[in-house]
């Protein structure tokens, strides 16, 4: 990156480190932090949407819909994350290929399952076998986002379901007394008021989501854990920057990153909670009212 970096073996410790920490592999390492942020930015709203749908379905008066909502939250909440991640991504990937296989090549006679292999016809491969690498990477990432959203959506669903029940019943009765329909009560009275009850639970899920991002590594995505292991491993002079096993320092770096990130989230969530409590008939809202007098 810098001009003096052309021959690192002649450098002192400080400039050597300066060159080392800005070499191409490290730039990829820094870019992989963006992968983590992108995952969070995409997963959080999707999971919230899944959770909202699940909570709304669980409250439904149509029995099958309510069962579906409850089954989804109970099932996903009950399966260990790591099992779900390893299993569901595989099922999703193979499921998509199987469906496309049935549509695209109905005349295929060979077995799809051959021992440990899952072989669909070449046209049904998703993404197509000869697509460039970035398509495969994006597809893998999209599968990961979807899986995270399913898992954390179930947790959100449970929290939102509880929050909806925590909204004082008289509020809803008053709305009904004014002649609002069920739908109107739900959207105009229940939903705006439930967030403050949901926030402690949701902020917990957000923290867990942050801490679950290293699971990306398990899905074969080159995230910060992948690069920390890759860069921290000992290097011989086949490399420009030989060094002994430095994984300790790289993983320490990740630890500090996650601590700082969760701390920052905590501060932001505390502010949001204060903002939402304003004027609410909750303990926090009541305290704010008294303090203002």
């Amino acid at each position, binding site marked *: 990156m810098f001009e003096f970096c052309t021959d690192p073996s002649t450098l002192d410790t400080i400039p050597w480190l300066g060159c080392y920490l800005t070499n191409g592999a490290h*730039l990829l390492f820094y870019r992989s932090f963006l992968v983590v942020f992108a995952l969070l930015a995409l997963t959080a709203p999707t999971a919230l949407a899944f959770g909202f749908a699940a909570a709304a379905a669980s409250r439904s008066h149509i029995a099958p819909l309510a069962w579906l909502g409850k089954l989804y939250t109970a099932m996903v909440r009950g399966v260990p994350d790591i099992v779900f991640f390893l299993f569901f991504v595989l099922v999703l990937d193979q499921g998509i290929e199987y469906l496309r296989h049935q549509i695209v090549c109905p005349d295929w006679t060979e077995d799809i399952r051959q021992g440990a292999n899952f072989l669909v016809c070449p046209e049904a491969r998703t993404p197509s076998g000869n697509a460039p690498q970035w398509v495969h990477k994006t597809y893998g990432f999209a599968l990961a986002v979807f899986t995270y959203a399913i898992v954390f959506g179930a947790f959100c669903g449970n929290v939102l379901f509880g929050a909806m029940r925590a909204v004082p019943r008289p509020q809803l009765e008053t709305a009904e007394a004014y002649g609002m329909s069920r739908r109107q009560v739900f959207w105009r009275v229940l939903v705006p008021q439930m967030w403050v009850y949901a926030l402690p639970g949701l902020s917990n899920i957000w923290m867990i989501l942050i801490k679950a991002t290293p699971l990306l590594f398990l899905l074969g995505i080159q995230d910060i854990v992948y690069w920390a292991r890759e860069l921290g491993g000992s290097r011989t002079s086949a490399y420009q920057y030989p060094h002994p096993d430095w994984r300790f320092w790289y993983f320490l770096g990740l630890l500090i990153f996650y601590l700082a990130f969760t701390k920052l989230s905590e501060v932001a969530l505390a502010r949001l909670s204060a903002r939402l409590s304003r004027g609410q008939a909750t303990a926090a809202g009541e305290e704010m009212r008294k303090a203002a007098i």
Partner: protein
Amino acid sequence: MKHLILTASLLALGAGAAAAQDVVRMGTEGAYPPYNFINDNGEVDGFERDLGDEICMRAELTCEWVTNDWDSIIPNLTSGNYDTIIAGMSITEEREEVVDFTQPYIPPASSLFVAMAEEFTLEGAVIAAQTNTIQAGYIAESGATLIEFATPDETVAAVRNGEADAVFADGDYLIPIAAEDDSLMIVGEPVQLGGGVGMALREGDERVAAFDAAITSMKEDGTLNALILEWFGDEAATW
């Protein structure tokens, strides 16, 4: 007008997809210097990078490099995540059953033991080796205790921190490591394993012939030997 632009851009996308039709994705591990590794610029580098690029040029194929963990490198080839394995993989009968190999591009090489102390007997020792390698298979049948690791680097780390008595791997991988670390030394006798290193493709993939022809032409004009000497040193076995 809007429709026209949209159609035009869709056509352009289609053309881009068509041009990318013949991408051959070369799967490698990226953690086994000097065979293949991720260099300081974050790119795949090493003997197999140079070799693969040359082969693709001679076979007139567009190639892209993909890295994948060693322990799932064969399943991911058969399921189509990439099209070839070019990762220091020795040709063995068991692997022949699930993939098709090209002819070898590295002659059968010797595997070595590296340990912290000179005295070494294989019997009863704890040996570190990488999962699913011919070296791990050899240790499992030798009467020594085998501990397996996912990456080559971890096998050497296990010797350094005393978890294993010795590491057993390809000589070409271990020689530079032993040479640069005073506490590590080559012990015991070299062992000849495998039938040389070749590229693996899915069973029935017709591109094997194109790769074979390219490797033959590299053997004939001496470029392959020059590459082997460049990456593995003057004492490496050549064709």
